[in-house]
């Protein structure tokens, strides 16, 4: 049992570190984890869940705003991008946030192709992050079910 726990813990550690190294997550995610405790054991999962719902909503807004036959209201697109940039920043979704910065610039330049490209990329990116984090949460569950505790991972 202990060997299994140790193996799972190592897997979890390696996986978490890789997410940071590949730029999926940044320090803010670490801050979220610090706010989690026995009293609020699902805090991180809950915030991320709200974030992914937000992604669906905001990306939908952006898509609709860009889908206008006629003139596109770039300030409308930009408003949704700004909101997504804010929430991705709050949860430590580094790649999503980075894309929003670029996206915002294309909005300001009223660059249609640039905006459409960013929209596609941000859609892929949030879905990728969602899958990665699901895998990470599953590893946590497995560790707990095997009778172990989820280790604190020191990124630095």
């Amino acid at each position, binding site marked *: 049992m202990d060997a299994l726990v140790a193996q799972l813990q190592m897997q979890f550690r390696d996986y978490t570190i890789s997410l940071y190294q590949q730029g999926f997550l940044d320090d803010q995610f670490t*801050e979220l984890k610090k706010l989690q405790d026995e009293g609020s054991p699902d805090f991180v999962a809950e915030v991320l869940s709200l974030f992914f719902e937000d992604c669906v909503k905001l990306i939908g807004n952006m898509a609709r705003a860009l889908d206008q036959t006629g003139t596109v209201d770039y300030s409308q697109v930009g408003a949704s991008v700004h909101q997504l940039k804010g*929430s991705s920043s*709050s949860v430590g979704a580094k790649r999503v946030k980075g894309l929003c910065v670029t996206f915002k610039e294309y909005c300001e330049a009223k660059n249609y192709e640039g905006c459409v490209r960013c929209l596609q990329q941000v859609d892929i990116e949030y879905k990728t992050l969602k899958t990665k984090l699901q895998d990470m949460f599953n590893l946590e569950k497995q560790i707990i079910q095997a009778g172990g505790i989820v280790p604190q991972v020191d990124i630095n």
Partner: protein
Amino acid sequence: MAEVIRPEKLDISNDTSSLASPELLHVLAVDDSIVDRKFIERLLRVSSCRVTLVDSATRALQYLGLDGENGSVGFEDLKINLIMTDYSMPGMTGYELLKKIKESSAFREIPVVIMSSENIIPRIDRCLEEGAEDFLLKPVKLADVKRLRDSLMKADERAFKNIMHKRELEANDIYSQLKRAKI
């Protein structure tokens, strides 16, 4: 001869019924982002604060009774120690909310903290000039919240200590009088 009760034995230090508990600051947090509301709520709870969340400046004014519907009737007992508001919100901004709060006689003394994801100096200056207690860059840090709470509690604690000191002096005065009378 009856025993004179010394002031230390008098249970004067536990009568805090007239004072709000120094531990539980009540914070009104205003943000249109559901993610940010969840986050600030956690920061505040971890810092032992009581939290009320609203999703717009309009709702904040409704909560405070400043929306012109009720006047401040019934809102005198509403005890808010701190208001934290996002700057960029659809409809009324955090800056406009700040101005409305500072214009109200009931709530102008409440510290208002502005939060923003954008580090724009003229914006920060404008908010501070309008009477904001502080301007925090998002994402807000736990250290920021703790610092705010500590400084507010120090102000509360000073007021509390002054009252306790006064009571102690009064009790000592009574003790001296009783001793002289040799009851």
